[in-house]
């Protein structure tokens, strides 16, 4: 076990959590996409470091896929979506930034206390990243439920997905390549469907505010 690599993995995990929090406190959708892209690259870097630790080429392939699909393709896809529906800001989230941040702080503490026993019992070199990964998952969920804009909810879904991938990396050095390929395909298809839904919402309601979906058009 190379301690330098383990240290870099832990540092990268911390940085991934910071990018997840960036989604909470920034206001523009562009910034969300930027934060997600950075998060994906960091996740790819962590996976690449773990592949060094493991000596597995398969994991390196997964790392490259993460960087390519989530770091390059999906942000590009989202930017296009944004350019077409043209909405730059998340207006009126359910909670203001300070309250959201406090809740996310609490979520991180919950993640730590929930995984405390696991971390204490584990002998994995990556055990310190487990609570951080769970925290990213919870923050992704929180973005999903606390925002009104359809695109922000898509970002929340993607952050959640990154968190799950990170959890898999931390607990078991990632899943086999075949499973990862399946997951990527799922994410891409889900994104595709969401794009269609976003267009439909936009065309029908002239807004991306999903709370309006409860009311009738006329």
């Amino acid at each position, binding site marked *: 076990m190379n301690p330098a690599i383990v240290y870099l993995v832990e540092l990268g995990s911390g940085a991934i959590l910071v990018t997840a929090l960036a989604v909470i406190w920034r206001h523009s959708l562009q910034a969300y996409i930027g934060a997600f892209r950075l998060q994906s690259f960091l996740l790819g870097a962590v996976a690449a470091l773990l592949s060094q630790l493991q000596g597995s080429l398969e994991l390196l392939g997964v790392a490259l896929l993460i960087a390519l699909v989530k770091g390059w393709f999906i942000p590009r896809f989202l930017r296009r979506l944004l350019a077409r529906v043209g909405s730059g800001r998340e207006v009126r989230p359910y909670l203001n930034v300070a309250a959201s941040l406090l809740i*996310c*702080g609490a979520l991180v503490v919950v993640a*730590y206390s929930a995984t405390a026993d696991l971390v204490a019992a584990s002998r994995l070199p990556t055990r310190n990243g487990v*609570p951080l990964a769970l925290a990213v998952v919870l923050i992704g969920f929180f973005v999903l439920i606390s925002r009104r804009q359809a695109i922000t909810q898509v970002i929340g879904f993607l952050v959640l997905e990154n968190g799950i991938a990170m959890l898999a990396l931390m607990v078991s050095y990632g899943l086999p390549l075949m499973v990862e390929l399946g997951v990527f395909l799922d994410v891409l298809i889900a994104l595709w469907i969401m794009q269609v839904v976003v267009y439909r919402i936009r065309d029908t309601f002239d807004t991306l505010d999903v709370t309006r979906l409860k009311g009738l058009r006329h």
Partner: protein
Amino acid sequence: MAWWIALFQPLLALLLAPLLVGFIAWLKAGAQQRRGAPPWQPYLDLRKLLAKEAVVSRHASWLLRTTPGLVFAATVAAAALVPAIAVGLPSDNLGDLLALVSLLLLATFFLALAGLDPGSAFGGMGSSREMTIASLAEPTLLMAIFSLSLGAGTTHLGRIAEAALIGGIGLHPSAILAFVAMFIAMLAENARLPVDNPSTHLELTMIHEAMILEYSGRHLALVEWAAWTRLYLFLAMLANLFFPWGIAQTLAPLALIGAAAALLAKLALLALVVAALETKVAKLRLFRVPELLSVSFILAFLAVAASYF
């Protein structure tokens, strides 16, 4: 010998601080396609200001006259507590993290008080804003360093750096949260760009500059010098507490020279980051500043929480 090094550290802070500020301004000018003043410009400013007489408003009390010296003294005292080139110095016993933050806050407090003293509108506005920001940024600073001291088991800054050096590279992963938190606190405490613009005197937006409008001559020189030293202290803390590599653990001359070189390199790197950031971001609206600071506070809080688990 150890005491000489301990005395040399604040001196080094005073000597390097103008160069650091000038270097950041010079980098920014370069990044913005301007020619800009040379990096040593602040030294020339200091010489010019020190040679001029200080004009004090007729309505000002003793407060305005004593504040520059007090602010300067508090900052120099704070500089004695921050490890710059060596650890294990006797000056560690002089005070810990809480003493450092109190000294910095003492300077802020008197500066804000003296801003109110001459009764000018801008001074009062600057003081009010400075207090708003300081009340949010100081706890962040405290919490961010606390997260390190929990790992090291001491609140003395020199010993935190020493513990990190002895423990190899074993900083807790939460250190990155604390680093980001402290970086934001650094920007807020030193009137850097997303919070305050250090290079303008625009009435409606200035914070730090509004408080020091009334100073002139040698008073202004002392206040400015103290502000630059404060920036140096924050950057030195960011460099040496989070990345303690290169600090001398013995007092051998070669180790000290190496440590000085490492410190310069780390400061230059941080200056580059600050300059790049200040070129990239625009100033935040005043009412969004508390949001930014609450982000940094949450990050610092998480860093502390993470070091408990």
